[in-house]
């Protein structure tokens, strides 16, 4: 603790120095070398002291060094003892720059370099001390981030400067966070008055501090803390309900995405396509391929892979339809077996041509992290996007089926093939296009899934059963049924999961569907009229 305290003090001095003399002349290099040399020790306690000394020195390169240290990029050359900052640490040869002068030194082999290692404890200290530094920057968002970082990490030595900060701070949110951070610290010291400042706070750190206080021997403090906790729990109940609903809808949206393409090929055309999952896999691999083509622009690549994924999967769908399915019309068992074969072929093709290993699809910046609703509830962004995407795809498909000539023809051919042909509709062409549409949508699902799960040869297998389950439950041939079935199965699963566990929840959902199908064999929304009898 003593170390952190002086570290903080040192950093605060550093801020003052940096603010007072922005153009301060760099200290002679030998100073820096000595400071860094102290870091090159095996003991983490000694390292902590070296960091303390580094900060206390007020050297203006400290921030750069600490950042590099945090990333594990501050390294030392084995033979020359020179300290370098690694600029890029992938592969065998790394480009490096001199830590003291900042001058580029070309490439060095990872064999010659020794890393100055840190562990989680040091990382935590570095984070909170750098946060104190960041409280001074102009960017409000960075200040809020820094203040949040300090929750639960305030030390006694920080109190006075932090209170000063609270007084100077213009942004209300930062002020509130800092006050809470100070209150958490006070509570930890046994100050019962601090409970008031934390009442109603949904911060997990505040809750943790209150829980610890509620266990304390001081009766008055424990009672006050328990009272505050009870109030917070009340608020959290609502939060938890919303959270479960969101989890359910998001799982449901994945199910809908996976199943909606199948709802067209299986539901509308009546083709049991076991290779549906592999069409999704192709979509996901398209997203990966796009990112390989456009390195450094994961966001753009992802957006472009939406149409590309659709096209790739649709073309693969056409190939499957022309080469296998058209010859097996009206023979569902043979279709099932043949498409299962196709699915194995596609999987092994990917294994052989690309790799049996999973590929890494990067999430763009705007899709990682979460959207904070309140301090106890935040919605993860990637799932929010997928939820929105699923609804968009559904709306688009409804439009195609209801408002376009293709949709009209598809509906006509499904209702009565002979009659539609008599009216001059080219049934074969409609078959191809419908299958392509269903496959293309599977490709879209794959692009979305690349953001949630592994992109590998087995991606499709994991979703094929669920897809059939959703389509059958929703009622074959009904898109609305698929939407309702997918979302409700997702919610049921997530409501069951906390008390039944993931394995049992899945089993319970399956049992539920089996029982439901016994009672209503045609699913939630059975097709009515003549089409249902055909």
């Amino acid at each position, binding site marked *: 603790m003593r170390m952190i305290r002086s570290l903080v003090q040192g950093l605060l001095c550093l801020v003052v120095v940096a603010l007072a003399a922005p153009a301060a002349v760099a200290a002679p290099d030998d100073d820096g070398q000595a400071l860094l040399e102290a870091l090159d020790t095996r003991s983490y306690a000694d390292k902590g002291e070296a960091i303390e000394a580094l900060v206390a020195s007020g050297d203006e390169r400290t921030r750069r060094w600490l950042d590099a240290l945090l990333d*594990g990029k501050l390294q030392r050359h084995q033979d020359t003892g020179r300290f370098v900052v690694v600029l890029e640490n992938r592969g065998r040869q790394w480009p490096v720059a001199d830590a003291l002068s900042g001058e580029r030194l070309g490439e060095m082999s990872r064999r010659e370099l020794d*890393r100055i290692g840190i*562990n989680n404890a040091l990382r935590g200290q570095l984070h909170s001390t750098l946060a104190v530094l960041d409280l001074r920057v102009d960017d409000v968002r960075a200040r809020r981030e820094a203040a949040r970082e300090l929750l639960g990490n305030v030390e006694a030595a920080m109190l006075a400067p932090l209170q000063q900060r609270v007084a100077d701070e213009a942004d209300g949110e930062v002020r509130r966070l800092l006050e809470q951070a100070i209150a958490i610290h006070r509570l930890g010291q046994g100050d019962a008055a601090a409970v008031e400042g934390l009442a109603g706070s949904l911060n997990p750190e505040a809750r943790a501090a209150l829980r610890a206080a509620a266990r304390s021997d001081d009766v008055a403090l424990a009672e006050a803390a328990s009272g505050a906790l009870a109030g917070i729990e009340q608020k959290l109940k609502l939060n938890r309900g919303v959270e479960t609903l969101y989890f359910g809808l998001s799982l449901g949206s994945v199910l809908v995405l996976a199943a909606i393409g199948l709802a067209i090929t299986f539901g509308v055309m009546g083709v049991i396509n076991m290779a549906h999952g592999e069409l999704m896999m192709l979509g996901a691999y398209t997203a990966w391929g796009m990112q390989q083509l456009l390195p450094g622009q994961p966001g753009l690549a992802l957006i472009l892979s939406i149409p590309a994924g659709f096209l790739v999967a649709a073309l693969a769908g056409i190939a499957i339809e022309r080469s296998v399915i058209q010859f097996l019309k009206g023979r569902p068992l043979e279709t099932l077996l043949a498409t299962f074969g196709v699915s194995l072929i596609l999987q092994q093709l990917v294994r052989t041509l690309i790799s049996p*290993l999973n590929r890494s699809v990067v999430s763009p910046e705007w899709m990682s992290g979460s959207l904070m609703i309140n301090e106890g509830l935040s919605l993860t962004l990637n*799932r929010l996007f997928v939820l929105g995407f699923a609804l968009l795809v559904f709306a688009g498909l409804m439009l195609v089926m209801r408002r376009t000539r293709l949709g009209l023809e598809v509906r006509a051919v499904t209702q009565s093939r002979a009659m539609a042909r008599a009216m001059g509709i080219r049934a074969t062409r409609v078959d191809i296009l419908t299958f392509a549409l269903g496959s293309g949508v599977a490709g879209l699902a794959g692009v979305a899934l690349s953001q949630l*799960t592994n992109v590998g040869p087995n991606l499709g297998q*994991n979703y094929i059963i669920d897809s059939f389950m959703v389509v059958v439950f929703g009622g074959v041939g009904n898109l609305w049924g698929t939407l309702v079935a997918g979302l409700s199965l997702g919610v049921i699963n*997530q409501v069951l999961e906390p008390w039944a566990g993931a394995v049992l929840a899945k089993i319970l959902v399956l049992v539920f569907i089996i029982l439901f199908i016994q009672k209503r064999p045609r699913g939630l929304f059975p097709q009515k009229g003549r089409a249902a009898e055909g």
Partner: protein
Amino acid sequence: MIPIPTVHPTRWLAASLIGLGLSSPAIAQEDPIKVGILHSLSGTMAISESTLKDTLLMLIERQNAEGGLLGRQIEPVVVDPASDWPLFAEKARELLAQEEVDVIFGNWTSVSRKSVLPVVEELNGLLFYPVQYEGEESSENVFYTGAAPNQQAIPAVDYLMNEVGAERWVLAGTDYVYPRTTNKILEAYLKAHGVADEDIMVNYTPFGHSDWQNIVSDIKRFGSQGKKTAVVSTINGDANVPFYRELGNQGIDAADIPVVAFSVGEQELSGIDTAPLVGHLAAWNYFMSVDTDANYDFIDSWIEYTGDEMAVTNDPMEAHYLGFTMWKEAVRKAGTTDVDAVKDAIIGVSVPNLSGGHAAMMPNHHITKPVLIGEIQDNGQFSIVWETPSTVAGDAWSDYLPGSRDLISDWRAPLECGNYNVVEGRCGGGASEDVATAE
């Protein structure tokens, strides 16, 4: 799963011909030594196992370039059990009975090892198993070059307890033999160290689980009770990627709730965007970042062999390296590839490992290994933050499970027993009921 046989029919024919004694004895003298490789090249496990096949091919190629073994060339026989557990047994039988291989290197999952076990014992083969496993097993014909629980799980928990100060524990795993047995051992170990029941949360998920929202939010709630919380993860394979992604997205970072994993290595990390994982832990007996010349040489030859500048090495690869080197030494020592001679010769063989120490084969067919704890870095490598002062000998029977505590394994004469009960003083003491149900 549809089995995909990969052994060429002509090779099969050739093997049968040799079996019929049609080849002349002079040629038989020059026959290559056959090494069977039993790793899935298709199906779910191909992701992990296919690199192990390549590792062995590389080791064999290197050995042949140095003139082979006992003056004979080594010939690899690769079969594909296609991630299908019963097929593992069939392929093992094919290797031993038809191909007549001298040794088998293979398997990844415990269930596949259990399926192969009776075949290897019946046909008196040799199997080197390179992956960390749950222990509670010792076979005369199997050599376990991966970690037993006391070489991975227990030291990792010690680290979290003593160095990180964890007081609440989440034991999360995939629902099968290895996590269930390991978690049973860990639960017993934690309780023996005074951890209360309410401070342990156990959670199992199916293979390939991808929807972690609820579980991660549970962990977050469990961790906000004012005590330092750590997650011990025996989650297997693919399911780790969405798990870590969800952790990152829900804002749990390693400084708040560290996750220590036993199945996440360099290979798995190469398929993930590692930014949100920095600081989470893994316990292994080898990391690619180990700073020794032996390791750098191994990495260089691996990169050369694969032709991929970004190729990574991992712990099971080192285990195969050690297993292969030990087998080689034992064959040299015995002067023959005869299974019984090699089995006797290999006990006590000590070879340098890649982290600067030595690995020795113990009488219980497990090896000595250092235990390393590493933190994940943003480049998909681990930085080693802690290691055991010396190597740890693998313990086949855990000291923390009621029925297995009294068992020892010693395959040397005169004991020659895999489960000797020291209390009752007889061989075949039987494992605990707990373990029997876990299987």
